[in-house]
């Protein structure tokens, strides 16, 4: 069995190094929603330092939706998402709200009978389910990503299993990774697996769809100062040191606004509660804009709940 944690660099520390500085609170959507220190990385790290049992954290450990915003701001470099994922793994009873364990397992059985995909190009594209629900946008993305193959197995079941803390059979993971190993570049439309892919596929360059598209001159030139550009936060935070420079450069050339806070952390548009629109409202508060440009259709769905402004996918501007 593969370990379900999202492994980070060796220098990452565990909960015992948490100094209680509270910097993670400033960026965490759980905190914005609850204003309760238990719903924060700090709250969990401190609870673990007190040897609190995982059962006593069951209310809070599923509230993290792995946006990764806390990771770049933590001065102790604590591997926060793995901390949550490991806690979820330890919990015997998984809440039904996050998905049905049996249905994921059934999918694995079904998946095992499918032939392994063959990819003919050196560049592959993993499109998340939100994007797949919009075939015309997906088609436009593929037109822009020349010589790139859309990978049919997008690993959504793996993502769901990781969210729930369900262990993934190594055969399933191998089936997912095998065709990807030959690639030179793998583009992801959503960054939940970004760090894992970097580790599982050390020879493959992992890139976010947003980064790849904004490097295209015909996309770049269509962004303007009255746009609010929504960066897909998981990939951005997973590759923060590199991508913060990329988007900063973009800002300096096209002058559009971004969903970045003053620490240059991407503000997620959602929190764990899909009915709570505070995150999306906060992204928009006080902005003088005419159009919203998104990298991810999940962000588009969240923002549609709170604004009448036009929202377009980056590939279609």
């Amino acid at each position, binding site marked *: 069995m593969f370990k379900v944690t999202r492994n980070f660099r060796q220098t990452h520390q565990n909960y015992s190094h948490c*100094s209680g500085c509270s*910097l993670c609170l400033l960026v965490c959507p759980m905190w914005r929603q609850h204003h309760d220190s238990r719903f924060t990385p700090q709250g969990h790290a401190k609870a673990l330092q*007190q040897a609190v049992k995982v059962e*006593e954290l069951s209310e809070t450990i599923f509230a993290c939706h792995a946006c990764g915003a806390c990771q770049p701001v933590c*001065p102790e470099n604590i591997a926060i998402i793995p901390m949550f994922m490991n806690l979820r793994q330890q919990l015997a009873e998984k809440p039904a709200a996050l998905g049905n364990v049996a249905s994921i397992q059934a999918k694995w059985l079904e998946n095992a009978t499918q032939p392994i995909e063959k990819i003919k190009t050196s560049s592959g594209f993993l499109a998340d389910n939100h994007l797949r629900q919009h075939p015309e946008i997906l088609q436009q993305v593929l037109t822009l990503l020349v010589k790139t193959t859309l990978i049919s197995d997008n690993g959504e079941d793996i993502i769901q299993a990781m969210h729930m803390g369900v262990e993934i059979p190594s055969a399933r993971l191998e089936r997912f990774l095998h065709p990807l190993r030959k690639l030179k570049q793998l583009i992801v439309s959503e960054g939940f697996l970004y760090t894992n892919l970097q580790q599982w596929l050390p020879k493959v360059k992992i890139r976010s769809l947003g980064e790849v598209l904004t490097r295209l001159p015909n996309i770049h030139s269509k962004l303007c100062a009255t746009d609010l550009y929504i960066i897909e936060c998981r990939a951005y935070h997973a590759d923060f040191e590199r991508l913060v420079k990329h988007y900063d450069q973009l800002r300096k050339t096209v002058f559009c606004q971004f969903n970045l806070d003053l620490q*240059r952390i991407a503000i997620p548009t959602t929190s764990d509660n899909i009915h709570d629109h505070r995150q999306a409202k906060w992204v928009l508060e006080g902005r003088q804009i005419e159009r919203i440009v998104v990298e991810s259709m999940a962000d588009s769905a969240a923002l549609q709940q709170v604004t009448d402004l036009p929202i377009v996918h980056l590939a279609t501007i």
Partner: protein
Amino acid sequence: MDIPVIEIGTLPPDPVAPDALQGIKRQQTNPSRWQGENWQAFITKLATYAIEIRQDLASCGIFVTDAGGVAYGMPHGVLIARNVEQIATLFKTAQTYRIPITVRGGGLTTEGESVAYGGILLDMTGMSQVLYIDTEKCIVRTQAGIFWHSLAEVLRRRGMDYLSAPLNLTASVGGTLGVGGIDVNSARFGCSADQAISLQVVTPTGEIVECSDTENIELFKRVILGYGQFGVITEATLKIRPFTPLRMHYFYYGSLRNTIEDLILLDKNAVCDYSGILTMMDKAITLLVAFDSEEKEQKFQQQWKNRLRGYGELGFTLRSAVYYAFHFWKLKEAWFLFNRKRCLFPELQRSEYMQDKQMFDRTVVFSRAVWNFWGGRQMIIPDLATNVDKFVTVVEKANKVCQKYFPYYALYCVGIKLHPEHQEHYELSCIPPDATELAYGCEFEPMLNHEIYSRDYIQSFKNEIYDIGVENQCSYYRFGGMMKGYIRRVFGDELVDKHLAMKRQADPNMILNRNVIF
């Protein structure tokens, strides 16, 4: 001898003479510590008002210590502040049942002032909403549990900024107004507490009172810089201003005295908008000078720059290279300085926070640097505050203490403009009593570099620094909590007793923040 039982909140004369014979029963002369009496009845009563106190380990354990990481205490229960009525009810009930309450904002104290040794921990961060912004009158009304950085995030969407706040993203508004708040623009604006126009306060007996320079004046005087003794700040109206990025200049010195003299020269003549000193031991000393406007910057370049004795980066590097070439036995120190510079300087100039040589978001830049380079699970930051005349001498003395205890350390010095109309706020606070117009503060921060030091060692270091404060009639920025012992020594009985009497009147059972001052 009959020793009467002491009621909480009373302090009778010490019945044990200094020359008392051995064997005489000794007695605690402070109000007796609370031992958990009435807790269950108190919780039950609060439940009737639908106030939920969390008593589980996961909730209480978050608050076992503060940023100092030296003082540890476990509250019996935690209440997340949600609204002013809830806090008022909490206090009324707590007075009846005599339950101690410790208020906590960001918990960035280092002497345990925001640590609850039993009783209730009131977590103010639950009240973090900005209530309104008036960009024309340049004021904001906010709940007081908000972190300064979260307030800045909201203000910046309107092109505004706060006047001054600690260079630390997670200090709260309420916690800062209660202790002072020093920024690199304090020589211009005063301490952060000076930007408060009015406050909503819950008194220790549970009244909700609005106070300002014109309304409930006495309470306002006591709550500002009052170390949370006279009430809980629940809302604050603050001055704000249009946001401007900083035009930054750094000058490098090898002499502490020269740097401090130059800093005072600039501050006294109001040459710049931001100023401060940050050092690596007393070897590489940086004078930071910054401006809001191009005009002021140009004036500085023309009239003042040449009068400063500091070097540019290249000049200082060459000078240091020559120094260490002749002091080769100090190569380890040179190596440390070189590495520190290599890591720290790029952090201070990260391109995403800079544009056209101007620094955006100074607090983000400096707070990141503070936590990444000095932060950790234990932070030792004793400090001294003096009037202008004594400052150099006091810093030099304390620098020797740093040298004695630690191979590597940093000093951080800033000026604080005093507002004559706030003179009464400053009584028994971090502002030294003998300062007029300008005061100065210096923090002494050892770099622990994963070395393990015993508590005794750390405490001896702090005591030696604090003793310099007593000798030189200074004040301290952090004088609560474990530093209680210094308060009478430095301010004298008369002043402390005056405040104690006021405290007893305001808080009959001494329930609010009882471990901080008295």
